[in-house]
């Protein structure tokens, strides 16, 4: 019996993903649960396992494809006797749209008013073309990267249509909030309907579809492009264009969103001379448990206690209802630098775990993040974030909030410094800390109290069991 295996529902509202690895090809024999391909979604990279053992008859996707939930991935012959039918559900995509459009073109309506004798140059040639283009966008993304990317036109912008913007009232409001003139946008939806994504793309400078750029789906020959279509030049010299990875694009979008919160960053130093001794002393014990005792894992514990002591740092802002949302759980995200970009795995219920357990969990999650084995669930639900750049260097920096969280702690490289204590300078190991906070909810005085609490806990470890 052949199985037509389609991309299953991945939960978490994930509808599409980019194929970043195909591990099987036609003729391969696979075991049940063996990884068939890897896709990258908005939230995480996910491996898609085989639904059953058998022989791969056909692979329907390629690396780089963007695929949807329900899209056919592979055909597998499971070797079981005499399948009457191909086991499948109906493919969701309609393919008769072209025919339908032709009918429309031919159809009779009662009246036609062709008031404009000369067609506007900015208008699309035909509805057909627009549809073709939309399909190109969906199906053959690789074409776009190899040359059919529409050229930016520098002419003065023209409204996309004389008619009112094809966008719902909610979307029109959103455009205004983002400072986008909705009339300039050509929507990618049916009939040019403008979606939230269209506005975000337009606002972030990615203008995939203004009407000035209507082109046939065939890659056009543009003089300035070389045969690869990837390099180009502007008037100052050569440039090249690379599509953003999903992680990069999401990072950019989220940070742009986060930047709307008024940020303030408070800097301070903690004297960790004594703590460092303890860290070295107890380090081997933690290694035995399967983790690594780092400043970050100690800070996980300290922050969990600090967040309990200062609930407004473990909160988010609901401007729409004018409410502060206090979280009763303490989930701390750790920014991890991976070769795919920045990921933030979240350690759940950090307050309920000891430092050894936190160290083990931190090692595991960072490893998973780097190896693309992290699940969506492990990247969500944070209430506070720690970002440690000390491994690379630097003194202070201003972290951007991981909204809807309202505070983030940046850690830089500790250094031995002369500190004036009791009438003389002593060499002390100082750890630079940068606390960014959302000023809508947190005032400067609260922020420095919070940061001082953290520093005292680092300088006097007894504070934790005493107050935390």
């Amino acid at each position, binding site marked *: 019996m052949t199985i037509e295996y389609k991309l299953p529902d991945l939960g978490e509202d994930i509808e599409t993903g980019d194929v970043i690895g195909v591990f099987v090809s036609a003729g391969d024999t696979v075991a049940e649960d063996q990884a068939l391909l890897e896709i990258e979604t908005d939230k995480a990279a996910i491996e898609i396992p085989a639904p059953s053992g058998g022989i791969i008859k056909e692979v329907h996707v390629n690396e780089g494809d963007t695929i949807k939930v329900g899209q056919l991935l592979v055909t597998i012959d499971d070797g079981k006797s005499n399948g009457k039918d191909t086991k499948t559900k109906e493919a969701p995509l309609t393919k008769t749209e072209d025919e339908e459009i032709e009918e429309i073109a031919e159809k*009779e309506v009662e009246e*036609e008013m062709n*008031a404009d004798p000369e067609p506007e140059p900015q208008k699309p040639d035909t509805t057909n073309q627009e549809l073709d283009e939309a399909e190109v966008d969906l199906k053959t993304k690789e074409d776009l990267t190899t040359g059919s990317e529409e050229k930016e036109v520098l002419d003065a912008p023209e409204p996309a249509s004389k008619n009112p913007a094809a966008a719902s009232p909610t979307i029109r409001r959103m455009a205004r909030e983002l400072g986008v003139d909705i009339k300039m946008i050509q929507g990618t939806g049916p009939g040019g*309907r403008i979606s939230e994504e269209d506005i975000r793309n337009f606002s972030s400078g990615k203008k995939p579809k203004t009407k000035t750029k209507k082109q046939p789906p065939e890659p056009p020959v543009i003089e300035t492009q070389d045969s690869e279509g990837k390099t180009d030049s502007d008037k100052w010299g050569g440039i090249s264009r690379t599509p953003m990875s999903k992680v990069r694009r999401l990072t950019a979008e989220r940070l742009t969103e986060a930047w709307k919160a008024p940020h303030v960053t408070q800097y301070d130093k903690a004297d960790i001379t004594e703590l460092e001794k303890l860290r070295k002393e107890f380090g081997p014990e933690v290694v035995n448990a399967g983790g690594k005792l780092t400043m970050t894992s100690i800070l996980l514990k300290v922050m969990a206690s600090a967040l309990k002591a200062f609930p407004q740092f473990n909160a988010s802002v609901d401007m729409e209802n*004018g409410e502060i949302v206090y979280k009763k759980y303490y989930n701390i995200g750790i920014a991890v630098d991976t070769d795919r970009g920045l990921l933030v795995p979240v350690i759940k219920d950090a307050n309920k775990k000891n430092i050894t357990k936190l160290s083990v969990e931190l090692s595991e999650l960072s490893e998973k993040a780097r190896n693309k084995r992290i699940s969506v669930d492990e990247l969500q639900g944070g209430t506070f974030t720690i970002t440690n750049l000390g491994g690379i260097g630097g003194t202070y920096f201003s972290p951007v909030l991981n909204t809807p969280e309202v505070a983030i702690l940046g850690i830089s490289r500790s250094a031995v410094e002369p500190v004036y204590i009791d009438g003389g300078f002593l060499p002390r190991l100082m750890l630079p800390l940068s606390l960014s906070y959302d000023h809508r909810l947190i005032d400067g005085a609260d922020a420095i109290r919070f940061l001082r609490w953290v520093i005292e806990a680092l300088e006097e470890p007894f504070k934790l069991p005493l107050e935390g």
Partner: protein
Amino acid sequence: MSNGENKTQLAVIGAGPGGYPAAFLAADLGLEVTMIDPEDNPGGVCLYRGCIPSKALLHSAKVISEAKHSKNLGITFSKPKIDLDKLRDWKNTVVEKLVGGLGILSRQRKITYIQGRAKFVDSETLEIKKTDGEIMQLKFEHAVIATGSRPAQIPGFPNDSPHLLNSTSALDLPEIPKTMLVVGGGYIGLELGTVYAALGTKVSVVEMTSGLMQGADRDLVRVLQKSSEKNYESIMLDTKVLDMKETTKGIKVTFEGEGLEEKELNFDKVLVSVGRKPNSENLGLENTEVEIDSKGFLKVDAQRRTADRNIFAIGDVAGEPMLAHKATHEGRTVAEVIAGRDVVFEPNAIPAVVFTDPEIAWCGLTETEAKEKKINIKVARFPWGASGRATTLDRNDGVTKLIIDPETDRLLGMGIVGPGAGELIAEGVLAIEMGALASDLELTIHAHPTLSETVMESAEVYYGLSTHMYKPKRDR
């Protein structure tokens, strides 16, 4: 409380369908609000002397005409007896119930309601003459002018005569006259004409231009005109009223126009409904930066802000279309702007409904407008003769039509004539606001048997594939 120390964050002048929603939302968004209106409760013209009482009377007219109409169905009633006092009382109860409710809603929101009239002393102060005679000053951070409009008068007519009615006095139902002339074939005259005709008055309509309901779609008006010809004594188009003289029994009217049988006619009552004028006078606007255009409307921007930054204007006083629901939406927009949100008044479609029999309703782009603006459109019509529901109502006289952008199939406008058109138009407004395509209407299941199916079927007509209208394709 009569010194200059009174302060408010937001002063709303006029508590009609623009003013009270603005005040309510502003209060809900945390502002401290004062509302000033001469009536004892919010409601304005719409509730006291407009939409609501006229619809109450139109409902009674509908009962009468349906009873008459039912003889086609084999049901005959004897001639209705009309207890005018009771009818008037019922109409008044409707109004009182609604405005009383608004008063409660206003108090629940802790809005300060001042019964009186306000005038601007400067750009941040109002002088209020309260109904009880007291005069007070009120400082405001923001003000919203929502003073509405009033019936226009024709100078030289016996405007003080008890036989000359305007929309306000006509709604008071002083009596059921034997004959009545409606001057002006617009929606107000036709609605009130419908009421009086149903109550038994012989109603004539005189209109200067060549058709009733100027500005409305001709396809729709044609249907209304046909039924009006049956209900009314006469409809005089392209006809001017040259003169009116009060007589002992009524008013003698002199007409000018071609093909008139008589140049002079006597009427018991004359209802003048030749439009409405914005209430922009006597507000002390000269003491502010607010600008007024040549028609008396206050000039406003997309946020409904006047040239005076802290003063906003909404509703009839801020320009056409003079419709209650447009005022309401403007009012809510303004409340959000004042509360600090960056929003604008930007509807893609404003519905207009005329509650005649049959009703006329439209929204978005009209054919006429498309012609003027040189917008390429296609029109799809579905006559109600092919509607099962219309047939069961014995009302096959309706039409549903769609105005569609042929490039994208997007719905740009909708027009309906027929009973219930006012309710049916809501679907078109939503569809236009959402950027829906004709195919969205076509592929949406509409309940059977309802008149709403005509919306779906007119979308089917657009594609040449209507179930109940066979139209073979012409070969090209």
